[in-house]
Structure formats: C-alpha cells, structure tokens
C-alpha cells in the first residue's frame, strides 16, 4: 500500500464522527432507552435529541446540525404504519428524500443523513442502526462543513 493512502487510513482511524440523532418520543427514543437498559454496546458518537414525532423535524434542523459541525444526522421513528400520529414518519421520510437531493446540490454526501425505524421493543435494532451509521460516516470522513462555514 502506498504511503499516502496509509496516512489517510491513519487519519480515518483517529476521526471520531459526530452524529446528531433525532429520535421520536414513542419509538426511536424508547428503543434507545431500551438499548441502554439492556446494557447493549453501541458507539457513543451519537448525541440524541428527542422529538415528539419524526414528522416534527424541520429540514432546517438538519441543515443547522450540519452547519454546527455534525458529520451525520440520524433520524429514527416508528415503523411505517405505527406512527403515534398516524403519518408523521411518512412525512419525515419524504423530507429526508428531498433533503438528500438538496445536500447533494450543496456539496454534501446524501449518505450523511439516514432515516430508519425502530419500535419501542427493538433495542438491538436501534444499536445496530447506530453502529452501521457510524461506520458509514467514518468511511465518508469528516464533514467538509466542519469549521468552514462557522468562520464566515
């Protein structure tokens, strides 16, 4: 392996992704809570914000998380059909689909945002989602926004 790519790998190893998680009160957050009660191990890179419903998440919240230096944004809500407010999670899914397009236009990898589902009983699933997402963000590397927009 060439020296330069080795150097990059080394940098990647030291990189600790900063993830903002928006979790819905009824499923995502309950799943995270369960994961904690079950003493499951999952990466500590995620900072959790509890919202009443994923449908409440404004795309501006996500953009601001990135501007503030997040490397990835994870949204976890109720499984399709299980939303406490009937359709909030479907609305969130649509916002995320369009946000991914917007992020791409603005020079950010669409994979830096992910929406997934975990019911209140799925602590393991939640832990797995976080693990997968952190791994993906670690592959992508630090957000190109880190410290760039803040100075202006």
């Amino acid at each position, binding site marked *: 392996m060439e020296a330069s790519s080795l150097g990059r790998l080394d940098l990647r190893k030291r990189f600790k992704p900063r993830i903002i998680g928006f979790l819905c009160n009824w499923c995502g957050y309950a799943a995270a809570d369960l994961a904690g009660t079950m003493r499951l191990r999952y990466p500590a890179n995620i900072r959790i914000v509890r919202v009443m419903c994923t449908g409440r998440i404004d795309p501006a919240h996500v*953009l601001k998380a990135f501007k503030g230096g997040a490397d990835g944004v994870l949204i976890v809500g109720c499984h399709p059909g299980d939303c406490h407010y009937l359709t909030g999670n479907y609305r969130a899914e*649509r916002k995320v*689909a*369009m946000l991914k397009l917007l992020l791409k236009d*603005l020079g950010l990898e669409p994979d830096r945002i992910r929406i997934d589902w975990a019911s209140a009983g799925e602590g393991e699933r939640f832990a797995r989602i976080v693990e997968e997402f952190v791994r993906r963000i670690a592959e992508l590397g630090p957000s*190109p*926004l880190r410290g*760039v927009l803040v100075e202006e």
Partner: protein
Amino acid sequence: MTLAIEHLTACAGCENAILDLGDSLLSVLRDVELVYAPILMDAPPPERVDVAILTGAIRTEEDLEKVKRWRGKCSILVAFGSCACFGGIPGLANLLNSMELLKTSYLEQLGTINPEGEPPRVEVPALTDFIKPLSRVVKVDYALPGCPPPMKLISKFFEALISGEEFELPAKSVCDECPLNSGGEKVIKGIRRWVYDEVDLSKCLLEQGFICLGPATRGGCGARCIKAGYPCRGCMGVLEGVEDQAAKMISAIASATSLEEVALEDLMRLSDLAGVLYRFTLPASIFGRKVRGARRG
C-alpha cells in the same frame, strides 16, 4: 431629504421599478431630492446623503468597497431588491467558487474560443469568493425584497420615509394573496413539470403538482407571477421568522403530497432542488453556498 441610488452587480431592473412609479414618483420627488443615481442620471457622488438605496449583489471587491463607503455616508441604508437582500439570481453562483466561475466562463463554456487557455487580461475589480447579502456586511436599516420590488411596496416605503412612520414588510405568505388559493387543505396528487404538463390556471398550482414557492415566500407582491400564469419562484424571500426557504418548501411539499397518490420515488426524481428552492436566496440560506471544493485558500 437627499437620496442616492447606487448599484452594485445588478441588472438595473430595480431602478426601472422606481421609474415605473410614474406620476407618484413626481410627488415623491417634491420631498426627496435625488442627488445621485448613475443608472438614471449624470451627477457626481455626494459627500453625504440622508438615504442611500443600494441595488444589486456584492460580487466584486469594488461592490464590497462601495457598500462600506455608502454606509459611512448615509443615515439610512436601504437594501433594495432581492440581490441586495439575499443575493438574488447572481447568488446562485454560490454553487461554484470564484475560481470555478472564471474557469467555466473563460475556458469550458460552450462557445468559448480560448485555445491558449488565457485568463482575462483587462484590469477589472476582482470577484469576491462568494456572494453575501448586504446585511452580512453592513447594518441595513430597511430591506425591500422583490425582483424587482413590487410598486406598491416601493410607494409605501417612500411614503413612510417622508412621513417618518415605521415601514414594515407584509408578514404573510404569497398564498395569502393568491387568487388561486381556495383556503382549504392542500393536497398534491402528482408531481408535474412546468414545461411538459398542461396547467389549469383556475386551480392552485402547487396542488396540481407544479413547484410553486408561494407557501415559503413572503407576500407583498400580490401574487403577481401567479396572476400572470406562472408559479411563484420565491423572489420576495423567506417568510417572517423562517430561516431557510428550501427547508421550508421541502416541509410544505412533504406535508401536502398525498401519501396514496404520490410515491416517495416521485419526490426523489425532482431535479435541481438547490436551483429551484433557493433561486433568489442561496447566499442568505443556512449553508449560504456549496460546500465541497469551496474552501478558502
């Protein structure tokens, strides 16, 4: 009261809008003395004025210099038009940095003949890295958005200026003034494209599936584009208390699409979201510009 109208990187449309006031401009000019306006008349720049109206975007170092100089010369500074308020159409250039812009214009663009790959040699003011709204550079006393600002708003502004009353922009959305707004809940049943699909000019354009920025855009224009048979493109800027026009519009589309009739894939096929949803406001948005490959230095 003395007034100066200075242009930055602009198209002169704002100056035309002021001229369009017609007769009422004459009554304004009874109380306001226009001392400097290079686009409209020939007069040397004054030492001091009461009011300076600035039109256009900050695109060059010269524009930046002008804005700072006028701030020092006037008591009331007005950001006039969408370019001055949010960056406007030129603000879309923030999807590239200044080096990429020059490369595109002088080397790559179709129709460019430049076999030696020479950069332009004429001495002109350098481009700033990115376009910024006036309010991020100096204190702005009044902002009059619009491309160009609607005549009614300009009149109201001059009236307030002369009488000393407070001037405030309308806080409601374009939908609020739109003749096609039935007032009921909006349901989008399919995404359609303006150039290809047939349009019914008696029904809400957004409900028909055309991307109309009315719900995310400040009113005050009387929904003039929609009345002319064209969807709102968002020139009045984002609604009061909202930070980002694209974010707001994405929310609006997500909440209005019918879950049965519009598939997630239909939304994923929307193209050029930054160009469409930030058409006039990219420099004033949360990111302000494209990020990758756009670092300084």
